[in-house]
Structures are given as C-alpha cells and as structure tokens.
C-alpha cells in the first residue's frame, strides 16, 4: 500500500517536473490583506512577476483572517495548482492544511512571514532578516558620524512586535563598538506617522529643544516622515542638524531624501515573489530543493542613490 502511494507520488512528481517548462503554470497566492502600503506593493509586484514569467496567478485576499487563508489554500489544492505562495497572517495553526498540500504534491512557499509548522511541510520561505536590517542602519550611522560624539533617539515600532524587537537589536549590534554613539531616548511610535511626530516632539523637548540630538533612528519610514515634520516645526533642519536613518524604503522617504531631509533608508523589498519564483523554477526544472530560508537583500539607500528616481519608480506600486 505504502509502496503504491510512493509510486503514484513519484509519477505525479515526474509529470509535474515534465510540465515545468510549459507556459502558464498556475500559481495560487494567498495574501494577508492590504493593511499597509508595503503589503499592497508586495501584491502588485507578485502580479507583475507572475505576468513577466507567463504564470497564471490565482489571487486570494484573506482580509487578515486565517480561516480565509486556509479556505483559499484548500481551494488551490482542489484546483490542483502548480505551486502555492502564502503570506501567513499568524504563525500557528497551519499544520493540517500544509500537510494536505504536501500530500497533493504542491510546493508551498512562505512569503515575508514564518510559520511554526515543521519545515518539511513547505518548500522554502522568502523573507527579510529584521536584525540584519537594523544592523545595516546602525553601521551606516556609525560610519556617517565618525568619531564625533552622537546622541541618538530611537522611534520603536509597536511594542512587543517582532520587527520592533529585531530592528532594535540589530541597530544596537550595528553601533556596538562605537562608544561615541549612544541611544539616549527610545520610545514606541507604533509604526505610524502621527505617533512618530508626537513622540519626536517629546524627544525634542527633553533634549534641549533638539539641539542635543545628533541622529534619529526610526524602525520604519512612516515614523521618520512624521518625525521630520516635528523637527522642522521645532526650527531645526532634518537631515543636517539631525541625521535620519530608517527602514522600509517606501516612496515618501525617497521624496524626503531628495529634499535633503532624510539621510538613509534600508530597503525591506516587497519583491518577495521574485526569489520565490526563482526557487520554484529550479525545483520544477531538476528538483533542486532550495534552502529553507531565502533571505532578501537589505539594501541601503542614501541621498547619493538618486532618491528622486527611486521615488518615481516606486510611487506606482501601490505603497
């Protein structure tokens, strides 16, 4: 019996491998929703990538609900798609549906977020290393400041969220060994513009009207954009009086960089589908099993990297 099953699965594998180079693979993509501009850009880029490679993309928006994602996955399995991409809304509760996909011989690639299930249940996960992002930001600042003493204020993400914890940790690693750099204030701005601005106002108050602050590190660009306004309203020049480095690389921070009001941003690329499709193609072609985690590049952009052009290139992506 077991042997039989093995044989069938081998046959299925052979068939799917044989079909690999035929045009029009069907890919099922279960997206969390559209809670942020970044997420919208990820959807746009996944669609673009699929179109470029001649895939047929079945898109399902889960509107932040796991049950919708599980239902979408089951329907993809029933349709017999060639591969499934999923950005899981939560980490737990995926075992049974991933098992079903595995039994149906459909490779599953996780985008951007991880799950707690056994790694054998999915082909690979594509994502960014959040600690590394913070580290890139920290290293840039350490280099930009040099030997001067520098008091840094930090706008954290939502308290307790993994991007906030990891980006804080990474930044501290990045500036470690530079005793002239110290984080003097660190508060949550909840990843939002309005709180970024509000908390920055408090930082400016408690740091001698902002004259004592040498740099701002924000866990995302939106908070930095809010903080830039607070700095301007306090009569200081953001980008000159206070250096500004943040993470995400959304279009508005490039606009600020083009105006000289922000200094650097580390990209969290919304193009998770590109590496995912590359891995799938290799897998289909000759069964190459990719590493369980494919780390996307955390690219650093500064004012020297043509921010105006980057803004133009990104503004249509749905950020």
């Amino acid at each position, binding site marked *: 019996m077991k042997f039989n099953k093995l044989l069938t699965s081998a046959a299925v594998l052979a068939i799917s491998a044989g079909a690999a180079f035929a045009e029009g693979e069907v890919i099922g993509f279960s997206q969390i929703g*559209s*809670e942020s501009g970044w997420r919208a850009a990820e959807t746009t880029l996944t669609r673009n990538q699929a179109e470029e490679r001649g895939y047929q993309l079945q898109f399902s928006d889960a509107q932040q609900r796991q049950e919708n994602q599980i239902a979408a996955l089951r329907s993809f399995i029933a349709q017999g798609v060639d591969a499934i991409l999923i950005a899981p809304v939560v980490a737990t509760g995926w075992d049974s549906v991933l098992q079903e996909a595995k039994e149906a011989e459909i490779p599953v690639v996780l985008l951007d977020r991880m799950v707690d299930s056994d790694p054998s249940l999915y082909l690979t996960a594509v994502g960014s290393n959040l600690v590394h992002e913070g580290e890139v930001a920290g290293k840039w600042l350490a280099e930009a400041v040099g030997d001067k003493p520098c008091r840094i204020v930090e706008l954290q993400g939502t*308290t307790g969220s993994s991007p906030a914890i990891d980006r804080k940790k990474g930044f501290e690693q990045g500036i470690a060994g530079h005793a002239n750099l110290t984080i003097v204030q660190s508060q949550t701005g909840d990843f939002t*513009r*309005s709180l970024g601005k509000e908390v920055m106002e408090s930082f400016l108050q408690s740091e001698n009207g902002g004259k004592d602050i040498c740099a701002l590190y924000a866990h995302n660009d939106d908070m930095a954009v809010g903080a830039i306004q607070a700095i301007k309203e306090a*009569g200081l020049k953001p980008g000159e009086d206070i250096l500004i480095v943040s993470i995400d690389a959304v279009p508005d921070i490039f606009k600020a960089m083009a105006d000289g009001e922000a200094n650097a941003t580390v990209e969290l690329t919304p193009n998770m589908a590109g590496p995912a499709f590359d891995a799938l193609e290799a897998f289909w072609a000759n069964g190459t099993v990719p590493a369980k985690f494919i780390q996307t590049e955390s690219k650093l952009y500064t004012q020297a990297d043509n921010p105006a052009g980057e803004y133009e290139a990104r503004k249509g992506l*749905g950020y």
Partner: protein
Amino acid sequence: MHGTLKRLAPQLIALATLIALVSVFYPGFLSVSLNDGRLVGPVVDVLKRSAPVALLAVGMTLVIATRGIDLSVGATMAICGAVAAYAVSAGYGLPVAMLLAIGAGLLAGLWNGCLVAIVGVQPFVATLILMTAGRGIAQLITEGRILTFTDPAFAFLGSGNLLGLPMPTWIWICVAVLTTLLMRRTALGLLIEAIGINRRASALAGVNAVVLLIAVYMAMGFCAALAGLVVTADIRGADANNAGLWLELDAILAVVIGGNSLLGGRFSIAASVIGALIIQTISIGIRLAGFPSEYNLLIKAVLVVVILVLQSPRFGTEWHYWRQQLQFKRLREGKIAK
C-alpha cells in the same frame, strides 16, 4: 460659578496632582518659552496633542448624556480625513475640502442617529457597524495608501500657530466653549439630559426625542470630522489605517474621567475636556520621564484606575463618612478638654 467649580474639583485636583507627579520625574514640565512668536513647552504639547480626544470628548459627552455611546468616531475621523486629503490633493482648495469632510462627518452621524432613534438599534451595536465598516470606506477613498498633500493652508490647521498657541488647541477650545454655551444658555442641555434619564417620559412631556437624538449623533459626527481634519493636517496625509485608531475608547475614557455617568443624564463638557487633558498629560508625561515603552500602557492603566477609584461614588461616601467621624472625635475631645 461656585457650583461649576465644585463639579470640576475632582478633575482639576486629579490634573494638578498628575502634573506635580510628572514634574517630579521631569522637572521642566511646566516650563514654557517663547520661540519665534510661538509658545514651546511640554504643557503646550499637551494642549495641542489632546485636540483629537478633546474634540471627540465634547461630542461623546452629549451622546453619553442621552444614554448612548458612539464607537464609530475613530473610523469617522479616518473617513473625514481621507475625504479632506482627497479633495485637497484633487485641487479643490481648503474651504471645499473642509465642507466635504464635515459633510461626511454629519452624514456618519445621521446614519448612526437614524439607526438609534428611528430603527431603535442599541447605540453600542448601531455604532459598531460604522466602526467596522468606516475604516474600509476610508481605505477605499485613499486606495489603501497614505494620501499625502502639500497644501500649506490645510497643514496650518494641524501645525500652524495663532497668537502663540497651536491651531488644534484653538479649535478644541472654541468647540468646547461654544457647545457649552449652546447647551447651557438654551434649554438644549436640559432636554438632552431629560432624554438620557428617561426617554419615554421626556417624549411624553413634549420633547422631540427622535430629532434631538439624531442631532446629538450628528454633533458627534461634526466633532469627529474636526478631529479627523486636525490629525490629517498634522501629518499632511490621510492614514486610513491608523487615523483615530482606538480614539473612541480614549474619548469615552475622557468622558468617564470627567465624572459623567454612562447611564446618561447630567453632564459636564468642561469636565470631559479636562479628562482628555488628563489622558494626554499621562501619555506625554510617561514619554518625558523616559520610561521604556513596555511600561507605557501599564502606567497609564494604573493612573487611570487610581483616578477613577478616587472619583467613585463609593469612595466619595466613605471619605465623607471618615471626615465626619474625625470631626465628631475632635468635637468630643474638645469638650473633654474643657
């Protein structure tokens, strides 16, 4: 006047104590300086940053006085902000954008009011509908992104200064004062209280409860629209996901700290507004004191609980009782000594 002061005493004492407490951790809390013709200092920040909650609290006080509640105000803020940002970036100019935003707020209020007053849905459920759907509507307007604009006149509403004070401060003070005058110089306040205490009795006595209820929810929508305009102007962009998020709860809390009963009836707008100032003083105080973010919510919760316990009727009667006992004791001792 003496009556008003007595009514506001618990809130004023709470605010003063809180300021003293914050000053211990951050000595410069009360310092204000003049910078380019505008006042700068933590207190000014409190006056500016409490604008959204204070504006919402004005409307919420009226709604709660009718024995209602409005959970949709945060979502309404997001809608109005999105409408205004959309209109401004489409080149309609500030007056039109403001009118459209306020119109959207009034419409949201009309919807809630009709559900409550005409259909008879419980306010909690009726406004929950718009609370859930509203943010979706706002996202449809902004297409899911942060809709930014550069119009300086609109930005002035959020970050401009008039006579040294920030614009948002002027806006909420004007709204609070004008609403209080409207309520107390006319019989309107009394009629609203009558509906809250007993809607049927007030209707039998000739109060047009249906129209008044709808009007109260529309006033709430108006306040939410102004709050939405302020937060949108402040960051020069409409953030449909985050504008006004959970602010309905802060507004309700402000009303409760203001000593107003959730069961309707007697209300004080001034007390609710002081409640909003208390909430903002806590938030800014925690930040200036430099506690780690992890403690923010805990500290806020503890302070709010302490304030509410001190204001509770039970505590009031106990306190009164002990004071009387103390007086009796002193009198008795005095007699013995003689």
